[in-house]
Structures are given as C-alpha cells and as structure tokens.
C-alpha cells in the first residue's frame, strides 16, 4: 500500500494531529514502508478463524448497581478531577468557544 501526502493529511486530521506539508512529505514514505510490510498478513489463510477478543479466557464481572461502589472511581471527587486541568473555572473544564 502506497500512502500519498493527501492520505497522510487525512489520517492526521482524523487523529487530531496538526501536521505541516513538510511533515506529510516525510511521513508518506515512512508509513508506506511500514504498511507495505504489514501487508504480508494478507497471505495468511484465516478461513473459519474467529478474530481474537481476549487472550486469557475471562468473564466480564458486573458490580453491584450502587452509587459510589468504589470511592476511588465513584463520584464526589470533583476537586481531584480538576486538579490537573490546564484550564478550569467554577468547577468546570473550559474549552474555546464552540458555538457562535
């Protein structure tokens, strides 16, 4: 698979990473090379094989449906949640204006 600079820019936009034209020209052959190598997987006959979803057999547990079952991951920790925010006001995360 050969990836051109337009594709690189599209993927970067999907990944929300700003890139310059220069970056895109540098990344196009790099990604082409890596994706070309990955393509050998197409040779493998996987007829009738289920894609793996869990490496070790395990069942998903359900916890009791109660508020704050685990105090660490439950509610009431707004201050701790906001501590590392680059910008927080009045107990909210703030972002640039999104509605005109």
């Amino acid at each position, binding site marked *: 698979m050969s*990836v051109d600079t337009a*594709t*690189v820019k599209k*993927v*970067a*936009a*999907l*990944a*929300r*990473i*700003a*890139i310059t034209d220069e970056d895109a020209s540098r*990344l196009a052959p*790099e*990604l082409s*090379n*890596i*994706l070309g*190598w*990955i*393509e*050998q*997987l*197409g040779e*493998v006959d*996987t007829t009738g*094989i*289920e*894609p*793996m*979803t*869990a*490496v*070790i057999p*395990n069942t*998903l*547990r359900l*916890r009791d449906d109660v508020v704050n079952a*685990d105090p*660490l*991951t439950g509610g009431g*920790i707004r201050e*701790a*949640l906001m*501590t*590392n*925010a*680059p*910008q927080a006001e009045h107990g909210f*995360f703030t*972002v*640039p*204006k*999104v509605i005109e």
Partner: protein
Amino acid sequence: MADLTDLGIAGIRDGVRTGAFSATEVADAFVVKVAKAKPLNAFLVETPDHALAAARAADAARAAGETLKPLAGVPIGMKDLFCTKGVATTAASHILEGFVPTYESTVSQNLWDAGAGMLGKLNMDQFAMGSSNETSAFGNVVSPWRRPGDAAPLAPGGSSGGSSSAVAARLVPGATGTDTGGSIRQPAAFVGISGIKPTYGRCSRWGTIAFASSLDQAGPMARDVRDCAIMLEAMAGFDAKDATSLKLDVPKWEHGLSSNMAGKRVGIPREYRVDGMPGEIEALWQAGIDWLKDAGAEIVEVSLPHTRYALPAYYIIAPAEASSNLARYDGVRYGLRDLPEGAGLQDMYAATRADGFGAEVKRRIMIGTYVLSAGFYDAYYTQAQKVRALIARDFDRAWEQCDVLLTPTAPSAAFALGEKSADPLAMYLNDVFTVPSSLAGLPAMSVPGGLDKDGLPLGLQIIGKALDEQGVLNAGLAIEQRAGFTARPDAWW
C-alpha cells in the same frame, strides 16, 4: 560493612529482618547512588523521601517486634508509566508534563502495601513506544555497559530502559517494568538482568498509563530470578478496578522455586531460527539447551508456524489500540494545552497533540488511525486479530509436546544509541522473539546467559503456559545457576 547496594531484593529483605543492617542504611546507600548517576539519565524524578519513609517504617516495625512485610526495607524504582499519587507522572511525554496524579496505580500501591519504598520515577520510551529509550521527551537513557575501549553510549533497551539501566548500575535492587511487546524482556537482556512479564491479567492495569490495553502487562526487573519472584508476588493480584484482572490467588512463587527440571519438556521452536541470526546468539541458545538438559529436562523441537506473522500483526493491533487510548490527550482534562491565537476547539486538539506527542508516538497513532479507518478495518485489524488467534493456537499445540519454550530474548546484543533510530522498521524487528508470547498473553521472562564478543550481555527467553509463571521462573533459575553470569559494568558514571 560491604556495600549495601551490592545486595539484591532477597539479600536486603533478609538482612533487614535479621538486623544485619537497618532499612534506613539501605535506603541511604541507594539514595547516594541514585544522586551520583545523572549521566545515565535513568530517573525522571528522584523521591528519596519516599524511600526513607518506608525504610523508617520498616525499622520501627522491627524495633517494635512486629512481623515485617514481604518487601520491608526494600527500596525500588518505579517506571514512569505507573501513576503515583502526588509524584509527577509523564510516561516520558511532553504531553503529560506537569501531570501529578491524585491517585495511586494498583501495582505501585501493592508494592507500598508490601513495605517497599520508592527511590524515584524511571525514564522510559515515550508512552512505552520504543526499543532503545530514544523516544523519551526527556532525553535518552544510557546503558551502564560500554564496549571495551569505546565510550559510545549504548541503548539500555526499551521501553523499560530506565528500569534496566538503574538495576544494572545498582542504583536500585529492583524496578517495575511494563511489557506490551517485549518492553521488560528486551531491556533486561540488553543489560544482563532478569525480568518477567506475567500472564496477561495477573497484574492490574489500573492507574498504569495505557498503550495497548489487550497487551500491556506490568512485571518486575531485578538482578536474579528469586528477586523477580519476590517482587512479582507483591505486584500481582486481583483488582476489581481492572475488568481484565484475573480473579485468582497469587501463588507463592518464591517458595515454589526449584531448578530441578526432571520430567519437564523444553520446546525449541524451529521458526525462531531466523535468517541472519548472529552466531553468538545461536551459540547462546545452544548453551541454554545444554543447561536445561543438565538440569534434567528433555528437549523437544516444536513448531510455531505463524511466528513470522507475529510482528506485522502486533504492528496493527498495538498502534490501533494506542490510537484509541491516546485520544484522551486532548488538552482539556490534564496535561499540555496548546491554544494558538484565535484557535477553535478542533485546532486546539490538533495543536496540543502535535506539540505534545513525540515522533514515534505520532507515527503509531497515525498507523492505528489508518488501519482502523473506514474501508480498511477488516483488511487490517480484523485480519490481525485472526492471525493473533492462530498464533495463540500455535502455542496451544506446542503445549501438547512441552512445558516451556526456550528462545533467545533479542536478535542481538545492545546497539549504540542512534544506530537504529533512523529506521522505524529496523527498530521494530528487535521484538521479533518477544512479541508472539505477548500476543498470546503468556508469561515469559529473560535471564542473562552470557556475553558477546564485545563483552555485552545476551539474554535467554523462557515462555510458559498461561498462569504457569512458576514453570517459567524455575526454568530461569536452572539457567541462572548454570550460566554463572556475574559480569557487571564498570562504573564510569
């Protein structure tokens, strides 16, 4: 008194228990070593107070006649992928610069509960993506090893390179690592120490910064097999906060250690004899076979037919999961925010991520985004997950013929910093022997086997059945006792 930093985990634990020395003396000795070792750049944050507080608690417990905890008096290093409450945690990325967790990862909490103290946070490849520790945003880690008469800095391996460098240089008796495709085993091999990745699900991933969630596993890195067993016992255990955590008791691995391999069958996978394998690696592998035979094991040749597809499958699955996991770094809730003048929300995301992520991280996010994008998902991601199922099936079939597998850990000894960083694919090939067992979630460890012609360490890998860490540790011990690996780097730092 002998230098306390020459002691491993078991030696420190036992000496503190008998009163041969105090835990505070041990912590002081390591703190001095850490402070002097700046040229290795193994530490991102030094936390002498944490180590000393744990040491004083151990000494006080002993003075009061209490039973000491399993790791009482043992100071360790913590890979910077583990969130540590009140101590900066960055995953060696600029995007998390200044992030100070308000909670403690389960693995680190387990270690503190066992009485261990922390000497500091260890440098690593950024977001655990790399095999040489050159992708850290805070400078390369340097291996304590050098080629004779050559001061060129060597790679400590990656991604747990701060951990490997610190253990090999005896700045810490043991350190945590994490392994997604070989990030404990390859660095352990590069610096002549031991390290084990347990079965997927043994160690909780809660509070460990995510790279590829279906592969990430924490494990210990230490000087020998016994120390790994002791430390893994403290790190492992069921955790309700991780949906993939295994609800199983933690075996007494240290107590179960035995190097008698009588009645055990050791499989030698023929597909691991790759083209262009250096003669020294080949010779080391043969030495490992002879050692395990000497320990009483029967050697059988086995086949893992899909081995050559493991790396390409890994380089679809891991970047795909990374692209999803790393979407959280958006400049809103934590970490860096880059808000260009007049920028809107989307521009802020893109600018923040462009500025905050290193080149390798961006490369992998973009590969992941590409293989998951509309029209390509089935051809890449679904196919990779099918191949992954075939790789796991290969191992299942091998277990009908053998109990553990023996392979080299890495295709070469440590390379010089800069030697492979220009070619991402050449770097990825470092993990050729470690990735298959990661994809299958199996326990695997590296133990030092010998030195190459330049006097640099080489490692042997043992892969075991799911949940059979004991079998892996025991085979590792059998090799360790016969390899007689005592080489250590001369301190130049």
